[in-house]
């Protein structure tokens, strides 16, 4: 009896749950739903919460995520207005805003929706064709039109998707911006050359500055020496002048002074390795003359 009661209660509860499952559904905060009756659209549910329904196969419920989806386009190559190739990809932020239309357009399949967005995004990228490369990459803030280009792409995508897809594009941004491989190599080459130029600039600057410093130092040193030499000349000149005052003394007896100077000169000149050939008249050798006459010995 007791066993039966439990069985009864259990099956009652199970039946209740089963019925709830068949006749109700929930829509989460992050979802919107579309209810169809025998395949025909009957209502959209955009408010989260508890909802009634008729069981399958009468009514069918489709749930869609109503949060912002991010979609990244393929990377493709484009040329700017001044014929420079670029590799670019963009991302889109989009959201299901009209669930009915979204269900009809894509069968409620997000992957399918993104496949449809791909060519649209690609088309929008061709906006680049009317800009120069310098509008995209430039140190000059005034010249840069990066934001404007993005905005134009965004507007192009928005215009395309406004009415027929049941979704709204809310944002667009450039995800990748590169140069194709071949150009990359050229840029590398140029960067390298630039660096090499810098290297030579630095080298010559170093040389120039070094030489400058050297020349300045040399000039300064020379000036100092020259100055010193000049000063020395002055000093010696002054000394000579002073000495001359003393030598004025010689004027008192020029004969003697001359004699003494002659003597001094003789003394100076005979200082070393001198050979003298003297006549017998030269004093004091004239003494010899007297002696030889007396002894009559001959010498060659």
């Amino acid at each position, binding site marked *: 009896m007791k066993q039966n009661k439990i069985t009864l209660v259990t099956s009652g509860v199970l039946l209740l749950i089963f019925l709830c*499952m*068949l006749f109700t559904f*929930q829509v989460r*905060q992050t979802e919107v739903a579309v209810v169809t009756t025998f395949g025909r659209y009957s209502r959209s549910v955009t408010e*989260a919460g*508890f909802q009634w329904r008729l069981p399958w*196969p009468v009514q069918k419920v489709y749930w869609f995520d109503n*949060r*912002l989806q*991010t979609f*990244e386009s393929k990377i493709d190559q484009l040329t700017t207005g001044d*014929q420079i190739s670029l590799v670019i990809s963009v*991302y889109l*932020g989009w959201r299901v805003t009209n669930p009915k239309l979204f269900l009809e357009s894509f069968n409620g399949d997000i992957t399918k929706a993104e496949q449809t967005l791909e060519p649209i995004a690609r088309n929008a990228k061709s906006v680049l064709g009317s800009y120069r490369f*310098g509008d*995209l990459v430039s*140190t000059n803030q005034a010249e840069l039109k990066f934001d404007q280009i993005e905005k134009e792409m965004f507007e192009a995508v928005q215009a395309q998707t406004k009415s027929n897809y049941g979704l709204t594009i809310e944002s667009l*941004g450039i*995800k*990748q*911006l*590169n*140069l194709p491989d071949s150009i*990359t*190599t050229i*840029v*590398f080459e*140029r960067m390298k050359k630039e*660096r090499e130029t810098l*290297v030579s600039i*630095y*080298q010559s600057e*170093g040389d120039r500055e*070094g030489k400058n410093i050297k020349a300045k130092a040399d000039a*300064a*040193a020379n000036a100092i020496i020259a100055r010193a030499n000049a*000063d*020395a000349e002055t*000093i*010696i000149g002054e*000394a000579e002048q*002073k*000495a001359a005052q*003393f030598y004025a*003394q*010689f004027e*008192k*007896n020029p004969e*003697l002074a001359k*004699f*003494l100077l002659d003597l001094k000169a*003789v003394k100076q000149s005979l200082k070393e390795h*001198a*050979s*003298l*050939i*003297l*006549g017998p008249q030269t*004093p*004091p050798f004239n003494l010899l003359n007297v002696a030889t006459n007396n002894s009559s010995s001959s010498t060659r």
Partner: protein
Amino acid sequence: MERNIQPIGVINACALLVAGVISAILARYAGAATGMVGVVFLALGFLVAAVSYFQMRLEERERLEKLEFDELKKSRSASALFTEDAETFTARRSREQFERFFLPIFTALLFLTQAGAAWWLSKTLPKAEPPKLNAATMALALYALFALILFLLGKYSSSLARLEGQRLLRPGAGYLMLGAFMSGLAATSEAATLCDFPKVDLYVAYGLGVVLAFTAVETLVGLVLEIYRPRVKGQAARLLYESRLIGLLGQPRGLITTAAQALDYQFGFKVSDTWIFKFLKEAVLLIILLQLGALFFSTTFVIIDPNEQGLLEHFGRQGGGRATLEPGFHFKWPWPIDKVYRHQTRQIRSFTVGEQPDSDAANERTVLWTKPHFKRGEGESSESPGMLVASRSQTTQTNKNEKPVPANILTVSIPFQYQITNLVDWAYQHSDPDQLLQKLANREVIRYLVNVDMDSIMSDNRLAAAEEIRRRVQERANEAKLGVNIVFAGLQDIHPPLGNKQTQVAASFEQVFSAKQQKQTNILHWQAYAARTIPAAQAKATNIISEAYNTALSKVTLAEGQSARFTNQMAAYQASPSVYTSRTYLETLAQSLAPANKYVLMATNTQDVLNLNLEENIRGDLLNRIVAPPEMNKAATNR
């Protein structure tokens, strides 16, 4: 015994077929892996039930034939018209043929089917996609219905087989019961899918696949054993295609009874009669219900961990004032009215824009420009294209004919770190906020770099640039309502690209640095020269001056001395002019002529040509030092 079991056999086979076909469609529609495996069992069950039905018919025919023969025998007992010829019992013969040939072949085929199905499942199950949510409710309902029908049929057939000894009903009944449990399991896994546990379906399917493989092994073993079984006449052959395993699985009660009997046997008393065993047997349902109740009760509260926040949803709606649950204990309405989604918000998350750091190189302690240190996917070139950076030197170039690409390329790897500050925005505004944030950050980095001078960002401007990028990403994230706080953006790893084999860009950048250093070195070298030269010149100048002073001093002093001496000499001269002159003359001559070689020519009146060798005596010094004998000295003087 006399009951005709054929209709039941037909019903069983048909039920299995119908259930099999419908659940095949259902499993395909709902993407239920468990359902798919169930279909395999149902199909096998159908085959087995069909064969056993065929066997039933043969046995029935044989019975009728025997009855007929017995009656004939009774009426014409005396007559020898009917002998027990082999030809007489055609039905029995065909049954025997059936048992001898058809059954082993069928069993072998059955084994092949089972093994093949197990192999197929092992191939397909790993690729199975999670079951579809929108069909789950319907699948659950239908599976539950099948479970009920198959269970009733199976229960009836198995009771009949047990009570009346209808062995031919047993295999079909076993499969029916199994089919019922399978459908039950499929329904449970669908329910699990509804409760956000889509993995359960796959695990259950794996389990059942293993059971199928075991069944195949059992069939094979049975087949082999059958060959070596002693043939005892009169003993009814066991049904080859009947699986004991499936029989057991189909009747879990039987399992318990068997276990109880084993226990009884082991302990020597009737364990199965003890009160506790009886109580357990009675209460087993209640216990299960209590368990379920406890499980349900446990959904009325939630405990949020310290590093988490929870999002409460009431019938899917954001839960009013209690939208986010802070760490701690919280009451809520039971499942499925209130649901809580946990998010680890306090954790610092990070991602990298640009080159992804190579985890293999993470152990290396030095990061060099000229050495690749980023992760490479297979087939990727050694260096992926870096990011475009404007260049001041190039943009100023206004040559219109020649079009250089006025940009530089830098290898960039910028780590970002962030925290979720507003969970509601983070979770409810974006399907993949993490990805969106990364893309935003990527866009901002590109945007920043195209408008900045390469040389400045790589040198003094680095920190300011990092802060600027962080600020811009934060701004963008706020605009997009991401509810995050960007904690950090690091610009450490931004450097010239490695280049390729021919163009070593990074290396050339390093050369610039070395050239800079070289320049500095050069300047310093000449500065040192200057520092050395000028003091040296100054020293030399001082020297010259002091020398000049010396010379001057000595000149003056000398003149002074000479003049003083002259004054004295003059006095002496005036006293006796001729004597003084002769004296000083001879004094000087004697002094001066002492070391000189002297030749005195005595003959002044001769006209001879004198030939004098005035060559200096090389060894004069040496000769002078020799103390010569007086004759020699005289000779020398005379010469």
